[in-house]
Each structure stands twice: as C-alpha cells, then as structure tokens.
C-alpha cells in the first residue's frame, strides 16, 4: 500500500484500492474569508449546521485586512457565522490558513484534512492527507463530517542526499513540478521520500514547501513520508507507512547533491529553468511570503542575504510572514531588523499579494520575483506583469542586485 492508500484505508476501515470511490469521515474541514460566504450560502440552502463544529476552522487570510467594503461585509458575515456555530475562528493577522492549521496541531501525521484552498496539499508535509476542494464540497463536509474521494494512484518521488549550500526545498519542489508537468499527477498523490541525508536536511518547514507545490503538478495530495524532525515533533501511527511492494504509477528520483537553484518563468509553474536562462533580467518587485515560503526558515534565508546590504535602486521588497508566530519569532531573532534595515517592508501575516488582490499588486511591464506558488498570467495583478517563482534566498538576492541572479551568486 502507498501512504495515500494507508490513510484512506485507515479512515474507511478496510483496505482500499486506487480507482475506487469512497465516502470517508474527515478529521478537519477548513475554509477561508474569500470562500466562506459561499459555504454559508450552501449550508443555508441545505438547512444544515456544522455537524462537528470542533472539526471546522475558518481562517481570515486571503484578503486580510479587508481591502474594500465588499470584502469587509463578507468577513463580517463569516465572523458572525463562526460565533453562532462555534467553529474554530482565526482572525485577520493570525496567518495563512495552512500554516495556522499546522501550528495549531490540527495537521498531524495520518489525518485527513479537506480545505477550500487548493494548497491544502501542504498538510502532507507532516504526513497528513490534505486536499483542496471547492465551496460546495467543503459545505457538504462541514454539514456531514464526510467527503467523497477517488482513491488516488501515487507517483513516488525520492529526494536523495543533502542539497548544496544555497539550494533549498523550493528548488527541489520546482524541479519536481518541472519534471512531472502541470498535469503530471492529476487525480494522483505524490509520495515523497527523503533519503541519504535529505531526511535530516529537510525539517517540517521544508517538507511543507514540498507538499504545497505538489498541487502544481495537479496532485490530489502530496505526502512526505514521516522521518527526521517529524518523528521528534509528532507521534506517527504505526500503520502510516508505505509497503515495500507498494505499486506506483510512476517513480522519480532526484539527486539533491547535484541540484542547482531553479526558477519558474511566466506564465506556468512547470516552466522551470536554471537561473542562467534569465540571469541579468531587471527586477522591480520582490515578494517573500505565502504558504509556500513564508515561514521563519524562509525569512531567515532572506535576512541572511540582506544583512548589511541595501535594496538595489528601483527595486522594492515586501515580506509577509506566514503567521503571527512567524512574525513574533522573526522579531525576537532580529530577522525583521535585518529585512527592514535593508529597505524591505513587512505586511500583515496572511496571503499578501499572492493572488493579486491587495497589498502590492504588480503593474503592467513589471517583473516580480516571488516565493509563492503560482505565476499565471494576471495572477499578481496586471496580465502584463511577469512573475518568476524562486526560493527565498534567490528572491532576496534579486532584491539587492536588482536583477535575477546567476547560479554562482546564489551559493554562499
């Protein structure tokens, strides 16, 4: 059995096979400010209340704080609903939904979590089966405590060895998406195994980055086999393991010791390149943050590059911590100081300008280097803006150089 099969079999109470449809109890259902109005509409249409309010979370992160009156009204409706129903509620500034559910301990090895955000695959970083759905699916999960799923086939990805200095989990994640393609794992799970030093090199934060970007290969779930730091942080159930004879739709192995920094060029996440293909291109705006790369490890990596240096003239930089905990830790460690002294500015914990709604959208003709997970046309504002996706280290270098760096410059 694969890890996805192991989790779904545990939930169903019998061994399940890829391809079969199952109706399963979910451990948690998550929704967000931008989707909750529709979720409430659907629940009202059904005449239903949350079946298990304690297994539901509402997080305000997508346009938080509210950018206009429509959003403010929608958020007020969400707050009222949360108060009335008793679901877990996380206010503006608590952080990006996925980071919050990890920090709150909701995401844990073997859990089945559905969220009204496609990057709900992130929970796989701790060994959970996390998957994204639309508002109606989430409303049905909230009303019934269940959802329907097709048991996925799995693609096995083995990351082997310790990455070279300056090369991060983001580079590995982009490499995976580039190799599989944007629909390389559609309807499937990506099961990631860390071996030969990778299990120590990549802690929880890095594993969440890997699981997060599994979505960009179309995956239903991205599950990193628990090892290393995960074994220290969580109790991992004995049944949560992939069998030696598990059958995979495809297997892929990446030698991390030979991996170079990567970037995804406009307008697709699977348009993955070596830095040298774009090195020297001028950069207007650098954004460090999101559920992909807004954790303390990411802010540290950016601060390490910026310490004692300044933004290049004509380049601006926004850092949005993924959560209030990350913000506090960055403050305590002096990371914020380094970022601000270098000329960067800090935004409210949450999604920031990732989807082009507020807090720093891009103008036509502007080039952005972002640590987020999507670079589709118009994603961050103008359809004539170009978004390049890269690691926090590469992004911070782009800010001080005012251009996309070369591979050699990224090495410390």
């Amino acid at each position, binding site marked *: 059995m694969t890890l996805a099969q192991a989790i779904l079999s545990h939930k169903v109470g019998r061994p399940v096979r890829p391809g079969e449809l199952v109706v399963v109890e979910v451990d948690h259902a998550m929704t967000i400010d931008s989707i909750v*109005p529709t979720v409430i509409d659907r629940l009202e249409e*059904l005449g239903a209340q949350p079946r298990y309010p304690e297994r539901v979370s509402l997080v305000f992160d997508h346009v938080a704080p509210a950018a206009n009156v429509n959003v403010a009204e929608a958020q007020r409706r969400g707050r009222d609903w949360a108060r009335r129903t008793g679901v877990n509620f996380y206010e503006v500034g608590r952080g990006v939904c996925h980071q919050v559910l990890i920090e709150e301990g909701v995401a844990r090895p073997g859990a089945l979590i559905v969220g009204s955000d496609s990057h709900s695959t992130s929970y796989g970083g701790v060994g959970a089966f996390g998957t994204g*759905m639309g508002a*109606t699916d989430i409303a049905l999960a909230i009303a019934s405590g269940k959802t329907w799923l097709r048991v996925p086939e799995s693609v096995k990805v083995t990351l082997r060895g310790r990455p070279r200095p300056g090369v991060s989990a983001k580079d590995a994640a982009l490499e995976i998406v580039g190799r599989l393609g944007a*629909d390389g794992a559609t309807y499937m799970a990506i099961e990631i195994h860390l071996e030969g030093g990778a299990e120590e090199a990549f802690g929880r934060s890095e594993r969440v980055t890997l699981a997060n970007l599994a979505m960009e290969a179309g995956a239903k779930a991205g599950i990193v086999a628990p090892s290393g730091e995960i074994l220290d942080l969580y109790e991992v159930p004995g049944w949560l393991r992939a069998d030696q004879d598990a059958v995979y739709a495809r297997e892929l192995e990446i030698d991390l010791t030979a991996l170079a920094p990567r970037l995804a060029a406009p307008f697709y996440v699977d348009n993955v390149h070596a830095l040298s293909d774009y090195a020297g291109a001028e950069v207007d705006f650098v954004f460090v943050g999101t559920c992909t790369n807004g954790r303390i490890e990411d802010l540290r990596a950016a601060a390490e590059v910026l310490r004692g240096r300044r933004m290049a003239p004509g380049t601006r930089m926004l850092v949005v911590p993924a959560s209030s905990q990350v913000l506090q830790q960055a403050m305590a460690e002096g990371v914020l100081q380094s970022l601000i002294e270098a000329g960067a500015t800090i935004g409210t914990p949450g999604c920031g300008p990732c989807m*082009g709604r507020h807090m720093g959208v891009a103008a036509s003709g502007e080039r952005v280097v972002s640590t987020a997970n999507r670079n589709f046309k*118009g*994603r961050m504002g103008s359809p004539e803006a170009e978004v390049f996706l890269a690691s926090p280290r590469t992004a911070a270098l782009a800010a001080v150089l005012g251009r996309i760096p070369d591979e050699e410059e990224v090495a410390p």
Partner: protein
Amino acid sequence: MTTPHEPRTTHRLWLFGDNVNTDDVLPGKYAPFMVGEDVFQNYAFAHLRPEFAREYRPGDLIVAGRNLGLGSSREYAPEALKKLGVRAIVAKSYARIFYRNLVNLGIVPFVSEEVVSAARDGDEVSYDIRTGTLELRGRTYRLEPLPAFLLAALEEGSLLEYFKKHGDFPGVE
C-alpha cells in the same frame, strides 16, 4: 437529467487550449466578494478572451484541451460560467478540483479527445446532455457516460441538490 436549454438547437462553440487555469476562467481580483455577487460573471475569461462574457449565449459550448481548470480551487470560476448559462463542457481532461466543482454545480464535464481535436473556434455545434450525443461538422459523436456516483448526483441537478434531497452522498458500491 436536466436539460435547461432546448436540445438539438445549434450553439456556438468556444474553443480553448491546454492548461486553461482558474485565474484565466476568473481572475482573483474579480472574485464575487471583491466585485459583488451580481456582476462577477461578467469577468469570465476577462484576460484570456475579453469578449467572452459579452458574446456568450446560454447553451454555447465550451470545448477545451488538457487539464482544464488547473490552479486555484475557487468555485466561483465555474459558477461564473454557470451564471452565464454553461450547462456542459467538453475537454480532453480536467484538473481534479475543477471537475468536482463542475459536478457540484451541475455542469456536465464530458471528456472527449475526438471532439476537441475536430473542433474549431466559432463552429456551430448541437448537443444533447441527456443522450450524450454531439453533432459537429457533419459528424455525430457519442460522449462517454460519467461514473455512476456522479451520474446519480447530476440526475438530481447537482451533488448539492442530491444531498439536499437525500441527506447523504450517492452510494459508492
């Protein structure tokens, strides 16, 4: 199954390529909670095909290549299409969340390599959701039926309607 438009009348075919994502279907800045519940559908394909929302007539058929609807889980992307009168789509393949959202909203997600390969943008097309037949360029195609679970949901109008009526999901055995 419900057929809100008259079967066997002729509609315009709107052809899209591979990897059309949900930011293409409805850019994030035009989300209903940004611009209002009543108007967001007017921004469907705002960047990719600015004339679409203006010229689309209910029953016109969207035909697309591989991996339609990749990206964000935003259900308001297919909901914008539903509001404009889309009742069925034919694609080579769908991204999984988009596929679920279509079923949940009651838009029938047909899969056909043949139809997509034969289609040209602006073609006249007639189709019947109930029988799964489609006529294009003088040829009749039989579209593959959906899995029983999804068919049961769509026969009540959508998965939401099914749940409303039965208080549970369709059987899976």
